[in-house]
C-alpha cells in the first residue's frame, strides 16, 4: 500500500512502575478504546557502517546508515553522515546485496549497531499509528510512536490537528513542536524519506543513552 501523508515520531517514556511491554499494552488498550484496529505489524530497522580509517583524505570518517521500512517494502534508504552534506539515497532492495561487497571499505559490527523499532500498526480513519518497541542488539531501549495522517502532505497545515489526536492517547508526553528534522521543512511536501530521517534522528538518540527510560 502506498502511504502518502504526513508522519510524526516521538518517544514515549515508560509509565512509572511498568515495563516496556506493559507500557505498550496500556497504549494498545487506550488506542483500541478510541476505535483503532490492528492492521498488521511493522518494522523499521537501521544498520550502520563505518568508513575504513584510511579511506578518506584527512582521516575523516563517514557513517553510512542503511534503513528499511515495511511501509516501503521495495526500497532501501541510505543516509550518509559525517560530511558537510547529509545525502539520502533511495534504492532497490538489492542494495543490501551490494553492501557486503564493500565490507573492507565500509565495515559494520552488526551485533552492536543494529537497531530497530517493531510492533503493531493500527488504522483509524485517516490516521495510521505505529507503536514500536525499540531494541538495539537485542536489548530493549524504549518506545517510539509514529502517527501518520494520510489526508495531508504539508506538515504545517495539519500539525495542530495531529497534535490534538496524539494527546488523546499519549497525554502530556506529546511535544508541542514538530520534530527537529521537520521544523525547517514544515511547508514542504512530506515524503517517505522524511519519515526515515526522523527514525534515524531518534535511533541516534537511543544509541547515545545507555539505559532504557
Amino acid at each position: 500500500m502506498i502511504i502518502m501523508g504526513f508522519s510524526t515520531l516521538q518517544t514515549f517514556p515508560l509509565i512509572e512502575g511498568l515495563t516496556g511491554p506493559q507500557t505498550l499494552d496500556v497504549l494498545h488498550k487506550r488506542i483500541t478504546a478510541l476505535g483503532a484496529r490492528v492492521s498488521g505489524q511493522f518494522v523499521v530497522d537501521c544498520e550502520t557502517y563505518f568508513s575504513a580509517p584510511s579511506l578518506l583524505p584527512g582521516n575523516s570518517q563517514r557513517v553510512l546508515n542503511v534503513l528499511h521500512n515495511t511501509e516501503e517494502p521495495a526500497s532501501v534508504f541510505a543516509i550518509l553522515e559525517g560530511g558537510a552534506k547529509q545525502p539520502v539515497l533511495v534504492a532497490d532492495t538489492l542494495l543490501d546485496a551490494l553492501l557486503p561487497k564493500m565490507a573492507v571499505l565500509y565495515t559494520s559490527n552488526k551485533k552492536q549497531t543494529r537497531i530497530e523499532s517493531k510492533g503493531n500498526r493500527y488504522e483509524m480513519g485517516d490516521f495510521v499509528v505505529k507503536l514500536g518497541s525499540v531494541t538495539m542488539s537485542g536489548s530493549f531501549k524504549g518506545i517510539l510512536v509514529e502517527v501518520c495522517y494520510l489526508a495531508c502532505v504539508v506538515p504545517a497545515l495539519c500539525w495542530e490537528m495531529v497534535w490534538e489526536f496524539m494527546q488523546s492517547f499519549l497525554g502530556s508526553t506529546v511535544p508541542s513542536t514538530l520534530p527537529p528534522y521537520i521544523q525547517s521543512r514544515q511547508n514542504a511536501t512530506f515524503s517517505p524519506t522524511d519519515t526515515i530521517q526522523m527514525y534515524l534522528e531518534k535511533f541516534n538518540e537511543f544509541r547515545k543513552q545507555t539505559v532504557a527510560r
Partner: protein
Amino acid sequence: MCAAISAQEKLQAAMQHKIVPNQEYLLQGSVLDSSKDVLIHRLRGLADNVDEQVETFQDRERVLTLGPVSGQTLTLYVRQAMDVRPGMDQSDTPWTMRYIGQPELGDKSRPTVLRNSIDVGCTPNVLEFLSEMGFKQDYEFMCKGLMFRKGRMKILVYKVYKNKTADNWEPLSMSHVVELSVLAPQGHDAVAEDVRNFAEQLKPLVQLEKTDYRRL
C-alpha cells in the same frame, strides 16, 4: 496478521533459495559499422520483439572506484538513461548502479563467461552520494544502440562514444559492440547453452566469444 520480517532476512532467504538473479552469462563480439545493418536484419528475424519497433537506448555510464584499503577496491558502474521518452522529463529518467564481479571463463566446455552482477535502481542523486562516500570517477562513456530480446536473453548492439570535452562525444571506434547476455539466479547453468546456441545462429555475421579480460 503476518509477522513483520526485516528486509535483510527476506533478502537472505531469497539468496539462499537462489531466486535472486545475480549471475550474468555473457558472450561478446563486435561488427564493423558497415556490416551492422545485415546483423540487425538477422536479429529482427530471430528475436521476439520483431513486430514492434526495435527498442533503442542511449546510456551514459560513469565508472567509479572506492579505495584501495588493504589492497581492496570496489568499482561501480553508474548508468543514466539519456534518451528521454515522450512525456518524460530528463530528471525522471532512471539511474542504476551496477556491481560486476570477477568474470569466470572456465574451461572450453563452459559456453559463456559467468560473472556476478548486481543491478540496483536508485534516485538521481547517486553520483553525489557516492562521491560523499569517497568514490572517485575513473572514466565515462556513452552507449547508443538497439536492444533485442529472445526469451530470457538480451541482445545489445551498440556503439561506444568517449567525450573529448564536456558535451562533445565522439565514436571510440569504427565498429559496434554486440553483447548476448542472460541474468539468472545461481545454478541456472542450462541457460548458458541457450546463449551458445543463439550465438551459433548469428555466425558468420558476428563471432561471439568469451572475452578474456586479462589478455586485453
